[in-house]
């Protein structure tokens, strides 16, 4: 791999063995393009925070190489650190400091003069809706406010690469949405963003590219669109008007009773929802509402993580044959 200035992050053969001998990372190779919005997914304990900790100089790597915008972490640590903004998974505040001082101190550590630091603290605290709380002591903030403050703190030196480790954990829906909007705007302004999350909906709606880490290895690194392309079937849950006791046989759709008024339908990608509704209408079944049974990414994710391998191609024609409730294994 050559030094490519267009890459925000290049990681080669990164390994981490913790004291005591636990191998948390087993040779990670990963590239993130400049300007990307990148999701890092993986189950608890996969090694995401360890990986991020190494990028942010909080964890010593055992071996491997990290380059941030072409600068090597070992050779130019100060340049790498200046390029990265970190929003860690766990709160790491001095709880006795007022909010604004937390941001001002962080700016000071980066060598930003006080006057400029004040301007920036004001800007980011306002953007994250914390300006009114600037004089509150940290310990008086709610969890969601602390999460937002970590973002403001990470931005005060205007990093080109923002890394967020589960930024929306424990954040309510409204604030989560506004955080998403904020991050999208930041990314549109040119900041490269890497984010870990356990909400797959978040990754799907925010990110362009994705890496799935499992047991310290990259199980998959691709674009979200390409990943979702692998999903050959979708499952919907239909709420029916009136009871249906006997299920009709519909070509291309696998129907399943959940109860008298609820149906589960699995359909392959060649079929359309219009077609499904027409077929149901012909059989006198009326649908009140429908929803996806499972987030689509979630299904792929579970499958990959369970196997620790890539998703295999689905069995051809498996969906045209009526069969009992489709389990995860049947996807493969």
């Amino acid at each position, binding site marked *: 791999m050559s030094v490519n200035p267009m890459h925000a992050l290049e990681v080669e053969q990164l390994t981490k063995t*913790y*004291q005591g001998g636990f191998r948390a990372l087993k040779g990670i190779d990963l590239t993130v393009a400049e300007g990307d919005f990148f999701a890092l997914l993986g189950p608890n304990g996969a090694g995401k925070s360890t990986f991020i*900790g190494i990028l*942010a*100089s*909080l*964890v*010593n790597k055992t071996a491997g190489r990290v380059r941030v915008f072409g600068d090597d972490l070992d050779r130019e*640590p*100060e*340049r790498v*650190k*200046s390029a*990265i903004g*970190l929003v*860690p998974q*766990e*709160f*790491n*505040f*001095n*709880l*006795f400091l007022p909010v604004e001082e937390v941001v001002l*101190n*962080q700016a*000071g*550590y*980066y*060598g*930003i*003069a*006080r006057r400029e630091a004040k301007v920036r603290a004001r800007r980011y605290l306002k953007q994250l809706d914390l300006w009114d709380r600037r004089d509150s002591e940290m310990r008086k903030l709610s969890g969601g406010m602390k999460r937002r403050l970590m973002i403001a*703190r990470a931005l005060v*030196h205007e990093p080109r690469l923002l890394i967020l480790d589960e930024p929306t954990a424990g954040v309510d829906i409204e604030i989560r949405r506004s955080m998403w909007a904020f991050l999208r705007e930041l990314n549109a302004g040119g900041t490269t963003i890497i984010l870990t999350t356990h909400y797959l909906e978040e990754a799907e709606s925010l990110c362009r590219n994705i890496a799935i880490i499992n047991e310290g290895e990259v199980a998959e690194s691709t674009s979200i669109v390409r990943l979702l392309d692998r999903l050959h079937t979708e499952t919907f849950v239909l709420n029916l008007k009136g009871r249906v006791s006997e299920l009709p046989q519909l070509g291309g759709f696998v129907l399943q009773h959940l109860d008298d008024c609820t149906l589960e339908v699995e359909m392959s990608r060649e079929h359309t929802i219009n077609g499904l509704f027409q077929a149901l209408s012909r059989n006198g079944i009326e649908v009140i509402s429908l929803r996806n049974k499972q987030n689509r990414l979630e299904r792929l994710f579970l499958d990959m993580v369970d196997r620790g391998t890539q998703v295999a191609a689905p069995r051809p024609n498996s969906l045209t044959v009526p069969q009992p409730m489709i389990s995860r294994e049947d996807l493969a």
Partner: protein
Amino acid sequence: MSRYGLAWPRYWICFQTIFVKEILRFARIWIQTILPSVITTTLYFVIFGRLIGDRIGSMGGLPYLDFIVPGLVLMGVITNAYSNVVSSFYSSKFSRYIEELLVSPAPNWVILAGYVAGGVARGLVVGIAVMVVAACFTEISIHSYSVTLLVFILTAVLFALGGFINAIFANSFDDISIVPTFVLTPLTYLGGVFYSIELLPEFWQGVSLANPVLYMVNAFRYGLNGVSDIPIGIAFGIISLFILVLAAFSLVLLRRGVGIKH
């Protein structure tokens, strides 16, 4: 490095930020940080200086009260420089906000300098407060301002470094009181604060010479009164040597991330 702006102005701002943060910290909680030493030393002056001191008579060629002033001032400097750095740095480890510094491009020596300067500041504030208290009991004259100030600062630097190393190795709040109790207190009490080592048998005089506090107390006593058990040049040489060793050790620990990085 020059590609993203001159380094020195950034380092200076970073140092200032840590230094000011440290000063604000001990100033905010002055009842815990400044007041106790002032009260303790006032008691020492009342009991040893006034009540008992009159019976002791003179020590090392000085009235007893005047003899113990330098030692008591330095005792305040030592304990406060030490405890400021050990508690502040350990808290930042414990609550993980040390990470704010670790992710930043602050070089290790700037971090160390900032924390040590914070400890020195508290040492000096307490030292001056104790001098003011002493002035209520006896007349304070300063024989040599430069020697007095230099000893003040070097002593504070040395023990601030000690506190830093203690914090790096500490894994609990208990660990930060072990060294002060079992090392610092005996060192100061046996460092010639309350007696001239001439009073000791020859063997114990020799042992005392291994105690760095002895050199500081004597150098300080020289600064105030012009009297010392030890030649002043040797005292400075030894203090400086201790400082260099501890500073180098601290930097090695920081570089390896001992106690702060996994």
